[in-house]
């Protein structure tokens, strides 16, 4: 019972992890991208289009090649997520538009796009695609509970964990990460030190959006088994909350996303009424608020938002 709860929580955490790692990268560059929920939707829409196009190119569904359909869907999800990031970047970085407003518009657009694509795309064969997405290690069953807990997930879950670890290392340990943090904290200083603020902001936002795009793909193809549902944006907002909860650290996000998904899934495993379920679902947001308040009261330097978060940078302005 508890094992299966933990197993599904770890599996479900991937959607939060993709979103929050992407958003953390973006926010580290000083861009508060409120379009992340929309970008996750766009990633999901891209995955649907990619998978449908691949199926259409086959003469017979039985010819489907597992790895190639997974890779094609991932590439299209990345492209669509990246497209969302590009729209956001062009508007906020090059054209210096307001970040919050642009992000909210992007979210509206993304939600609409996913619902539209989901409503029009040809879904035949999607359940077969989902089988490939959820395919795990062949030796999982031999290892019993241990195998179920660690080796029973589809490829995207492991990719989420790997990306989180890589991002954490890059941000914390490398020169690129140092420059990125400098851009997010004080772009004028970074600029004076010869770091290209524009390039860093573009790269961080685009890569972050691509990673977030996987979140939508994972939710539809892996978690829902190829059934299309449009509630991706809710998880997107939870991913934004997770960024605060983990005080802008992708490695902590692994644990944080598991906690979030446990809180989110707990009502299904507990014998509680509908009303109590809704109260439990409130917990992720409440703990996020508590973390936000505590970090601001304690005001430790390491746990603050990037100083220039939400502020557009124009070199000639002071």
């Amino acid at each position, binding site marked *: 019972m508890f094992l299966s709860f933990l197993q599904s929580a770890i599996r479900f955490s991937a959607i939060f992890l993709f979103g929050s790692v992407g958003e953390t990268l973006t926010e580290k560059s000083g861009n508060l991208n409120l379009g992340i929920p929309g970008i996750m939707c766009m990633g999901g829409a891209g995955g649907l289009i990619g998978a449908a196009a691949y199926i259409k190119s086959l003469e017979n569904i039985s010819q489907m090649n597992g790895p190639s359909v997974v890779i094609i869907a991932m590439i299209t999800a990345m492209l669509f997520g990246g497209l969302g990031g590009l729209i956001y970047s062009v508007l906020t970085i090059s054209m*210096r*538009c307001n970040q919050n407003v642009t992000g*909210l518009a992007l979210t509206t*657009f993304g939600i609409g796009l996913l619902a*539209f694509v989901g409503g*029009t795309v040809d879904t035949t064969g999607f359940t077969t695609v989902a089988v490939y997405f959820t395919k795990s290690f062949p030796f999982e069953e031999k290892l019993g509970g241990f195998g179920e807990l660690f080796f029973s997930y589809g490829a995207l879950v492991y990719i989420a964990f790997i990306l989180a670890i890589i991002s954490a290392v890059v941000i914390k340990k490398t020169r690129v990460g140092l420059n990125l943090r400098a851009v997010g904290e004080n772009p004028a200083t970074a600029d004076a030190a010869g770091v290209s603020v524009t390039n860093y902001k573009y790269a961080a936002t685009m890569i972050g959006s691509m990673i977030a795009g996987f979140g939508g793909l994972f939710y539809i193809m892996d978690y829902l088994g190829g059934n299309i549902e449009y509630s991706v944006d809710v998880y997107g907002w939870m991913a934004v909350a997770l960024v605060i909860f983990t005080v802008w650290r992708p490695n902590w996000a692994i644990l944080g996303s598991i906690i979030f998904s446990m809180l989110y899934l707990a009502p299904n495993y507990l014998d509680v009424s509908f009303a109590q379920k*809704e109260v439990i679902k409130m917990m992720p*947001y409440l703990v996020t608020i508590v973390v936000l308040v505590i970090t601001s009261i304690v005001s430790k330097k390491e746990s603050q938002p990037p100083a220039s978060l939400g502020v557009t940078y124009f070199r000639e*302005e002071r």
Partner: protein
Amino acid sequence: MIKAKSDRVPLFHISKRDNVPKWQAWLIRGGAVVAALLVSAVISAILTDGASMGLFFKNLFLGVFGTPRRILNLFQNTAILLCIALAVTPAFKMKFWNIGAEGQVLMGGLACVVCIKYFGGKMPNELLLVVMAAFSIAFSIVWAVIPAIFKAKWRTNETLFTLMMNYVAMQIVACCIFVWVPSGSGVLGVLKYGHMPQLGGQNYVINIIVVAVLVVLMFIYFRFSKHGYELSVVGESENTAKYIGINVKKVIIRTMVLSGALCGVAGLLLVAGTDHSLATTTVGGRGFTAILVAWLGQFSPFLMSFTSMLYVFIDQGASEVASVFNMGGSFPDIITGIFFFLVIGCEFFINYKIKFRSFKKKNEISTPDAEGEDTAVGLDKNSEEVTA
């Protein structure tokens, strides 16, 4: 490597401009709206395998002005959106990024339903409406002022705080609905009590009048009151505000009380005036859309009436287009998204000017520099040329 760089002049150079004539600015914005409509028409033509663009515009207008009912809907939806937009405006003028209007309105709506549930039928309708208004405004103020206190005291990031408060509010509403509807369907039916009276045999007229009055009041508040002045000073520069003796913390909290009160009015109008029910989706993203609308309207109440009507026009028209062309209910979201991108983007051309490099000059500059220290001189020369 460095040498090659020193020869390069950027393709274009962006500088700020602040004296754009008003008519020119509005021409650019109007152009963006027209461009957005054209892009939408092209997209819908592509998606429907070549339906004519004329048909797109025809249905767009039919969807909004086709019947008297639709025109009334246009005004009704505009009124609600505008009310929420007015609510977020004071905070934004202060650069307090309150994106929690969704939750604040929802709490107002919840308060109304609570009143109807417990006082409905026990007091006359007029009195009930007054009680509802009081409760709704009080609930919304509480919801708005919590983040404001933390912002004022500890500088807690208000964008993220108010965002989270939205979802807490939604869960509270979902929970209350399950308590009230024990069957577990999660749908609160139409409530019998606490309906706004009809005016001239039409629903919604009171909504429209209330919001119209609010527009004028807010205009006066921003333009002629001391409060309005103080909050714009805080928005422009907090240090200046402190220096001239404005109590910044007090202004932040006071402004959010006002913001919350207006959200409460919006909640009242939604529950008592239009829906007569409540769901987690009652506000339906309008708390976020209102921010966009207010921003497009430059936080001026009268311009905002125009932009919110424009938004509702496009949204309502696009849904008619979608239903005629069989494109599903989500098509309007795509169209409004495109509309926002273009209109947000056009602000760039109003606030900045782009100067392309002249190619003739570039050739003059690109005399090869000697290596080493000379590169620095070359750099200087280039930058002088650019600024000249």
